[in-house]
């Protein structure tokens, strides 16, 4: 096989390649089974009468069958965007290769599964609340300081007024 210096030559063939190979093998074996000998044997009387025509009909039959099969496969690939999906799945498999544990699968109970989906939003909400609470507490601390200072000032003023009052008595 020609060894190319491609950017990334996969050691194991990707899904797209396997798919193509499996289909090709199927076709190969089918054609091999439906050999010309078998065909001619079944249509023996006609073969005896017209051997070249028999051959030509057989060739066309095989060719048409192969074309139809390949076209159908291509259509399925196009409709399902399979080329893309196979490559992306290959990538995911590669990325998960060091993980031995079975991955999460839908439990079938929506209420259970939705919990994890909601968690990121709840975490965001929680950190937002923590932030504004802290800001509010800080703000109130400052206002409380002003209030205390104000009370002191009022006390001062009251004392001064009392002093004046006494002085006038």
């Amino acid at each position, binding site marked *: 096989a020609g060894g190319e210096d491609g950017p990334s030559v996969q050691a194991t063939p990707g899904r797209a390649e396997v*798919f193509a190979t499996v289909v090709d093998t199927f076709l190969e074996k089918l054609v091999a089974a439906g050999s010309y000998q078998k065909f001619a044997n079944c249509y023996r009387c006609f073969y005896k009468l017209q051997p070249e025509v028999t051959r030509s009909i057989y060739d066309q039959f095989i060719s048409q069958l192969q074309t139809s099969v390949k076209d159908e496969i291509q259509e399925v690939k196009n409709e399902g965007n399979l080329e893309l999906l196979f490559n992306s799945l290959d990538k995911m498999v590669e990325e998960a290769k060091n993980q031995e544990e079975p991955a999460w699968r839908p439990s079938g109970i929506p209420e259970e599964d939705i919990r994890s989906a909601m968690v990121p939003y709840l975490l965001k909400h929680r950190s937002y609340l923590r932030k504004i609470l802290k800001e509010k507490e800080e703000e109130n601390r400052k206002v409380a300081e002003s209030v205390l200072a104000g009370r002191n000032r009022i006390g001062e003023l009251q004392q*001064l007024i009392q002093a004046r009052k006494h002085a006038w008595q």
Partner: protein
Amino acid sequence: MSVNPMAYEAQFFGFTPQTCMLRIYIAFQDYLFEMMLVVESVILKKLDGFPGCKISTFQIRKSTEKFLLFMKQHFDKLFSKMEEMLLQLVLNIPKNVLLPEDKVHEQYPYSKAQFQALQDEIHQLQQQYRAEASAGQALRAELEEQKAVQAELEKILQWFDGLENICREHGTGNLEESFAFLTQNSKKLQDVLKDVEEKSKKLKQHDQLL
């Protein structure tokens, strides 16, 4: 034997792999039948060009059926093999693979209790915030009141200072002392008056007794 529904694969591919294979099977089978019919009709047509031959349509039909049956058997066997390989190698998601859209389940595997705890924490934070907010409002309200009170008190102080200034300007000396002296005197007078009243009362009582 349980049938694997391949639901996760369906989530990824957008179709169930088994359905896909079935579709392909039916399509292939249809083509095979179609091709055989075409072969048969072509042969029959060719035979029409040989008026003298002894080959009947029935014979041709029999030949077609024979070949078709043979092909179908191989077709089914080979397709079954292909299906098995595709379902195992291509159209499947290995057990350890998680689709990217399901990443949250790996990142945040929260149990019911943990989830509830998170919700409770959020609820508590909301309440705390509300409490702080109303505390803040109360503080600010007092601040406003203080401003008004301070203004009043300062006015009174200013009034007192104003009086002092007036007295100083008019040279009446220390008006405060004068006022204080006056109030003391009036107090003394009041005390004296009281004394006198008491004494006269006593005298009257004395008179009555006598």
